[in-house]
């Protein structure tokens, strides 16, 4: 068993899990957070996408132990008691999801994009969503929704840093290449 200390949606968990446990299994089966979906289980479909230290990862390909000491955001942690996140609002308003199975992953991929790039082009949005397969929508309304959410977030002002400052985030990659302070 591996001893883990993981912050999930702002709350720290100290737990132990068998070493082969994936981050996705930890979230869904141990913590009961079923927003991240088990789709292909081999990293093709993106339905399991969560943010680890701000970066979008396929939770089915990451071991829970690799998330030790890191901060994980799932779709359950995106809305606040005050309301939905602007991305969730925009996805709803533009009917960007149909069956919705890809939704938690697509929305978190979009969040990782907007955190790093508050004013993305259409090509940048398509690129950010390329790892999230959707069989229903044709992606068109998703792309529109991400544009709308980016605009809403920029309009909200204070909490978003000005364009450019976050272009090269000093976030440690899950693989550890940049793993500065957190390893």
């Amino acid at each position, binding site marked *: 068993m591996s001893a883990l200390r993981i912050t999930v949606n702002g709350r720290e968990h100290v737990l132990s899990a068998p070493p082969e446990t994936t981050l996705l299994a930890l979230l869904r089966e141990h913590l009961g957070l079923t927003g991240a979906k088990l789709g*292909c289980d*081999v990293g*093709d*479909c993106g339905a399991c996408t969560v943010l680890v230290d701000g970066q979008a990862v396929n939770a089915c390909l990451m071991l829970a132990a690799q998330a030790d000491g890191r901060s994980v955001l799932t779709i359950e942690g995106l809305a606040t008691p005050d309301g939905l996140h602007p991305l969730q609002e925009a996805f709803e308003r*533009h*009917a960007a*999801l*149909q*069956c*919705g199975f890809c939704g938690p992953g697509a929305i978190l991929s979009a969040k990782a994009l907007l955190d790093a790039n508050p004013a993305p082009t259409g090509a940048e*949005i*398509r*690129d950010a*969503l*390329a*790892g*999230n*397969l*959707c*069989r*229903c*929508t*044709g*992606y*068109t*309304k*998703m*792309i529109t929704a991400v544009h709308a959410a980016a605009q809403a977030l920029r309009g909200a002002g204070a909490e978003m840093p000005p364009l450019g400052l976050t272009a090269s985030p000093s976030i440690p990659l899950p693989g550890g290449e940049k793993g500065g302070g957190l390893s």
Partner: protein
Amino acid sequence: MRRRGRGIACMWYPIGFTVSANPSAATVKVNEDGTATLLTGTVETGQGSLTVLGQIAAEALGIATEDVHVVSADTDATPMDTGAIASRTTYVTGNAVKLAGERARAILFEAAAPMLGVKPEQLEARDRKIQVRGFPQRSVAIGEAARHALVGKGEPPIGTASFNPPTVAMDPETGQGKPFATYVYATQIAEVEVDDETGEVEVLRIVAAHDCGTPINPMLVEGQVEGGIAMGIGFALQEEILFDDDGRQINPNLTNYIMPTSLDMPEIEVDIVPSHDPTGPFGAKGVGEPTSVPTAAAIANAIYDAVGVRLTALPMTAERVLAAIKAKRAAQPQQLR
């Protein structure tokens, strides 16, 4: 060299099947607070059918969509529905919902008529009220009418109805009949670029004009068309189930069964053609499956326009397109460039 071409394809498509009975049923009950509850057996799979059916019930009762609580897909509580298949829900289930709403409304009219001192035929349901046609200031709130129907007249405002599309069996001698109650029509135009050295096809733009009757919810119609086009692009260029000699699928996962991603999607322009079908609920027909019917044909025609080769097998992968280009050049060496 990348060569550009345009292709067009048209289709018609029948709404609902008729090889056997194809009924839907619905119950609409109007509550004393002016809201309504709709019971339907149909299944929401993300296409937005419960939104559309709620809109139809609301329109029949003159209330807002958010006033309608939809209870669906629970055969303990809801009427049976033939299913979310055959692009039938808006037309077949929608007609059942409209009829059920109108039956509940007729009970409200009977209750409201003596309250307003007119005959039921003089009433209409609008803006959450039952009002005298032409004299909207003479009205009662719909909840008040519902309460009076229930406790005053002893007839709760509940309507139940079913709809089975009317058809005419085919005459075996003439081949004439009416196999489907209604049809939808569409034209899609594809603009592509084909690399004549690699055979790779990129779809740049698709314009899709669809006659789906009167769209109950245009945004959801667009969503169906865009999704259908994505499936059509996969069908045209990427998706193929491959088998080995023993019949086992050799590409059973999304690494090698390739489907469109956000990067494969072209610019899409959806044109909802103004139309009204008098047999549909408030003029509506349907839109689901037809959206992916003409896409691959339009792309095939665009490839022909771009590089002059006629592909007759799908998907039109780079290998197949390049093979066709090479075969054409071999057959016409004098035209090599």
